[in-house]
């Protein structure tokens, strides 16, 4: 369907004599389609989060708007877009406006290399894993800009903490992926899944420690509980987005959920076999896309469950945990994997 629309638009461009720009049509169409899908999915996730938290606290959760409260998020989104946009007077204008855009675009751009099914991704990059990691690292700049430009000490402190946390936890995040890259011998997300198919196992089995590190670091990267110090409402009001409201706040909010989706998608692809069916269920007539979404929801559910399971860490505990526990373990993991590859060949 994407290709159909793209073809139509390319022909239209050719008709008005701008066929030179035809090569940008495909990405734009893909982006629009992706944006639509992702927005709907995020709305679902927000509802899901509320339901999960309600479940864990023995509550009912949203149940008034729509069936099971499914339209609650739609209503919230409408409310956000129509709210008055309150702006601090002494804000630093350029960073203030740019920050939410970067936060949203950077995480959203991470989506384009995720393979939803065999060969189905916007761009099949050879260095997909690296691309996801690098493009999502833009969020740090967004957060720092937001915290800085709001001219508010709580926002600034929140931004600082958040940036420090993201930079710190990016190291174990990358390092937990290295053993998989070493074993599979590729940075291409499609090829990683194909390797798992060929090898007959998912990487979560030999690299369970790496999987745990990845999930933990991804949670911290997304500033989610129990690593949500930067946004701890009880301590820092709202963190770096304290001074944001309306659509700009919505973009931050959206960005955060997309970050969770991207991280979980990478986890699913790398550790949980991506679009591959569950063992012994390969013969069922279920498309790969469905398997992918199911696994994605499972990982997201895990991350949401964390929020209501663990208490919040203190700042020094958080840093200690990142630098003194996760990084050494992941380095050791790389070392052991390297030795295994050296001694037993690639089939680890």
């Amino acid at each position, binding site marked *: 369907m994407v290709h159909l629309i793209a073809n139509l638009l390319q022909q239209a461009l050719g008709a008005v004599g701008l066929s*030179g*720009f035809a*090569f940008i049509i495909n990405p734009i169409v893909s982006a629009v389609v992706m944006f639509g899908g992702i927005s709907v999915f995020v709305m679902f996730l927000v509802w899901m989060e509320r339901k999960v938290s309600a479940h864990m606290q023995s509550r009912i959760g949203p149940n008034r708007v729509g069936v099971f409260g499914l339209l609650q998020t739609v209503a919230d989104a409408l409310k956000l877009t129509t709210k008055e946009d309150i702006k601090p007077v002494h804000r*630093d204008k*350029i*960073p203030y406006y*740019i920050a939410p855009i970067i936060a949203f675009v950077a995480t959203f751009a991470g989506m384009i290399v995720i393979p939803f099914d065999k060969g189905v991704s916007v761009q099949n*990059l*050879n*260095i997909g894993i*690296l*691309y996801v*990691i*690098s*493009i999502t*690292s*833009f969020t*740090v*700049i967004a957060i*720092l*800009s937001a915290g*800085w430009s709001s001219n508010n000490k709580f926002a*600034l402190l929140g931004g*600082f903490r958040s*940036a420090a946390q993201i*930079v710190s936890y*990016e190291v174990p995040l990358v390092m937990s992926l290295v053993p998989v890259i070493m074993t599979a*011998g590729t*940075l291409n997300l499609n090829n990683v899944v194909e390797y798992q198919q060929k090898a007959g196992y998912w990487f979560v089995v030999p690299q369970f420690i790496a999987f745990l590190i990845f999930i933990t670091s991804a949670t911290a990267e997304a500033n989610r509980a129990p690593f949500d110090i930067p946004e701890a409402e009880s301590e820092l009001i709202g963190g770096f987005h304290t001074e944001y409201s309306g659509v700009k706040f919505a973009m931050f909010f959206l960005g955060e959920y997309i970050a969770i989706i991207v991280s979980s998608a990478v986890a699913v692809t790398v550790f949980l076999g991506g679009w591959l069916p569950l063992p012994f269920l390969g013969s069922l007539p279920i498309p790969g896309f469905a398997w992918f979404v199911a696994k994605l929801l499972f990982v997201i559910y895990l991350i949401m469950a964390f929020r209501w399971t663990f208490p919040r860490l203190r700042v020094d505990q958080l840093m200690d945990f990142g630098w003194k526990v996760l990084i050494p373990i992941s380095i050791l993991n790389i070392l052991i994997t390297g030795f295994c590859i050296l001694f037993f060949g690639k089939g680890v």
Partner: protein
Amino acid sequence: MANTIFYLIAGIIICSAFLVVTLRNLFHCALFLALAMFGVSGVFLFLNFEFLAIVQVLIYVGAVTVLIIFGIMLTRNVMDDKTRVLNKQVFLAIIAAAAVMTISFSAVGKSVFFEGDHPTITMAETSAAPDPPKPSSLGQNDVYALGLELIRPEKGYAFSFEFVSVLLLSALVGAIVVARKEKS
């Protein structure tokens, strides 16, 4: 038309670089620095070095710029005062920078590239050649080839690679030692 995008990126790089060195607000400077770096990674993409482009984004935008922003924020109270941001040798500096630029242009102008008769002057000519001297190491597996080149023991850069590792380690330790507060 892809050329247009290249010139657009080049324009962005030059403008933001100029803003980096002239803006009064250091934080804005850092943001434009990030933009310039991002543009440079785009230039890398034009040269078909995807891996290096991503590494450029990861290191420069994700790490160095963030580091610089941290530095700015940790030393911020000198930023907003009304003292001059430029030093006393601005005039001489303009002359020196202009001289360097001029002689570089003139040097490039005297080089073989300017003649346009070298077979590898433009990419178009390269691809138009009957058997382009493009080894398989580039393109599909350029990460693999680059890694091999870095650690290949014979005639590779294995020693430099190890040396850079040691340098990084010592920079890490050194930075911590220099920046930490003396215990009172």
